[in-house]
């Protein structure tokens, strides 16, 4: 075993330990940005490990890999930082299976309630419309809008169709 073998083993152990510690930090969080920083460290450690491999076997052909990886790591952390939002307390934790199931059930229940309420409202509106039609058969026409455009004019634009507001985005 020559000197360089020993050096490569020592460096490999150090790099592996560093990457493992960073992965532990990525698992613990507590926020998305902490994870981004930790994963950035993992990517850079990977670049160092590939460089170590290239140094051991004297291979110059893996050098382009290093260029590509260094760019990929940058794009990842910048993207996550750009879309970082305010997270409620405890949100960044990795949830257990039971917690996820309870959350899903709650969401489904809320959706059903909303659907029920919407249906009830629509039925009430239909009843009112038939009552109105019996009372006044000719609906008033808005004269400020050209006749050809009347069909397309909405009374109130609803959130769903114009995209809605961007919630909690960091600018």
């Amino acid at each position, binding site marked *: 075993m020559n*000197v*360089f073998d020993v*050096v*490569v083993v*020592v*460096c*490999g152990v*150090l*790099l592996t*330990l*560093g*990457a*493992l*510690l*960073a992965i*532990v*930090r990525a698992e613990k969080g507590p*926020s998305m*940005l*902490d994870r*981004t*920083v*930790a994963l*950035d*460290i993992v990517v*850079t*450690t990977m*670049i*160092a490990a590939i*460089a*170590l491999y*290239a*140094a051991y076997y*004297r291979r*110059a052909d893996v*050098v*382009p890999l*290093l*260029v590509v990886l*260094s*760019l990929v*790591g*940058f794009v990842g*952390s*910048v993207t996550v*930082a*750009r879309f*970082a*939002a*305010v*997270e409620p307390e405890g949100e960044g934790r990795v949830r257990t299976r039971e917690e996820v199931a309870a959350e899903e059930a709650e969401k489904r229940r809320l959706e059903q309630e909303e659907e029920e309420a919407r249906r009830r409202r629509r039925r009430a509106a239909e009843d009112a419309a038939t009552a109105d039609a019996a009372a006044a058969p000719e609906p008033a026409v808005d004269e400020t809008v050209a006749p050809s455009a009347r069909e397309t004019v909405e009374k109130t634009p609803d959130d769903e169709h114009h995209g809605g507001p961007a919630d909690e985005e*960091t600018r």
Partner: protein
Amino acid sequence: MSQDTWGTVADVASIVCLLGGAFFAFAAGVGALRFPDLLSRMHAGTKPQVLGLILVLIGLALRLREGGAVWALLLVAIFQMLTAPVAAHMVGRAGFRTGKVRNDLLVVDELSRDLGETRPGRTSEDA
């Protein structure tokens, strides 16, 4: 001295650089795990990390000793030095704006002070 001696010198230098770089990468991992808040973890993820990577790349360049490969390694080092500050700046800014910075650990907080001056009534919490 002969060509062979210079080769040995370069190999020894590359061994030193590789060991130093691996140590700094390890230090970055330890820092990321042990530091208390986002900004100090970011410090561990940028400064020792970039220095460690550059040392490893110097070690690799001394070992390869080929023109083309060395230029590509220089490119990697320049990319790292350009992108690490940008990424760290964006992470720090997003962290500050979304309240992930622990104010009790800050020695100087000029951003909160300036924000308080320009927009009275606002604190660092909703900056």
